[in-house]
C-alpha cells in the first residue's frame, strides 16, 4: 500500500518536472527526437525495402557479422533473445529484422565512436522465420541470416 502510494507520488513529481522542462523549452513535446523515428523503415516488409528505407542501395552478405545469441528453436515467440556483433570496420549501426513478421524491422541501434558494434535485445516472432542482422559500416550495408524456429507464436496470441 505504502509503497505504491510512494511510487504514485514519485511519478507525479517526475511528471511535473518534465512539464516544467517542457515549458522551459528543454523538451519540446514530440520534438525532433521523436520525429527521427524512421516510419518507412519500420513499415517495410523485407530486407531490401528496409535497406532502401534507411537510405542504402543494397546489402551484401557478410561473414563478419555474428549472432552471439539467437536460438535455433525458440520455445516462446514473444521473447526471442537476439544478440549481434559486427567485426566489420567502421560499423555505425546494427538492425535486427525478422523476415516473416508483419513488418520486418524490429530494432535498430546506432553506435557513436567508442561504443562496441554489439547489440542485444529480445524480439517477438510470429512464426518460424529467418532473422537478419543488418549492419551499416562506412555507409555500406551488410547482412547475415539465421533461421529461428518458433514453437509458440509471439503475435496475436
Amino acid at each position, binding site marked *: 500500500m505504502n509503497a505504491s502510494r510512494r511510487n504514485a507520488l514519485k511519478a507525479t513529481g517526475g511528471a511535473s518536472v518534465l512539464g516544467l522542462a517542457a515549458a522551459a523549452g528543454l523538451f519540446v513535446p514530440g520534438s525532433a527526437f521523436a520525429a527521427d523515428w524512421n516510419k518507412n523503415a519500420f513499415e517495410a516488409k523485407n530486407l531490401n525495402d528496409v535497406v532502401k528505407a534507411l537510405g542504402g542501395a543494397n546489402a551484401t552478405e557478410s561473414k563478419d557479422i555474428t549472432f552471439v545469441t539467437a536460438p535455433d528453436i525458440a520455445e516462446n515467440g514473444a521473447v526471442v533473445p537476439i544478440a549481434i556483433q559486427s567485426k566489420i570496420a567502421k560499423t555505425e549501426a546494427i538492425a535486427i529484422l525478422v523476415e516473416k513478421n508483419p513488418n520486418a524491422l524490429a530494432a535498430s541501434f546506432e553506435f557513436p565512436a567508442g561504443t562496441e558494434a554489439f547489440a542485444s535485445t529480445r524480439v517477438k516472432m510470429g512464426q518460424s522465420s529467418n532473422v537478419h542482422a543488418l549492419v551499416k559500416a562506412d555507409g555500406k550495408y551488410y547482412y547475415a541470416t539465421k533461421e529461428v524456429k518458433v514453437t509458440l507464436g509471439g*503475435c496475436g496470441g
Partner: protein
Amino acid sequence: MADPMKIRANAMGDKVIVKVLMSHEMETGQRKDSAGKTIPAWFIQQVSATHNGKTVLNAQWGPAVSKNPFLEFRFSGGKAGDKVQVTWTDNKGEKRTDEATVG
C-alpha cells in the same frame, strides 16, 4: 508514468557493459481484444544512452521488440563511478529517464 528501468552498468577493464530492463507494454497494434477491436499500438520508439553526458547509444525500435524490453550494449572509455543515463520515448510521447552508476 511508467515504472523505473533497471539499469546495471559494470566496468570490465576499459569497457563498460550496460544491461537495461525497461517496463513497457510494447503493444504491437496487431492484436485484437475479446470484442474484436484492434488494440492500438503502444511501444517504445526511441532509446538513447549517455555516459557522463556523452551519447553512447541511439536506438529505434518497432513494436516487434518484446514486452518489458531488455537491452545490452557495451562502450569503452568508462570506469567505475561514472554515470550512465538511459532514456526512452514511446509512440504516445511518454518518456522516462533513469540513471545508474558504473560499478
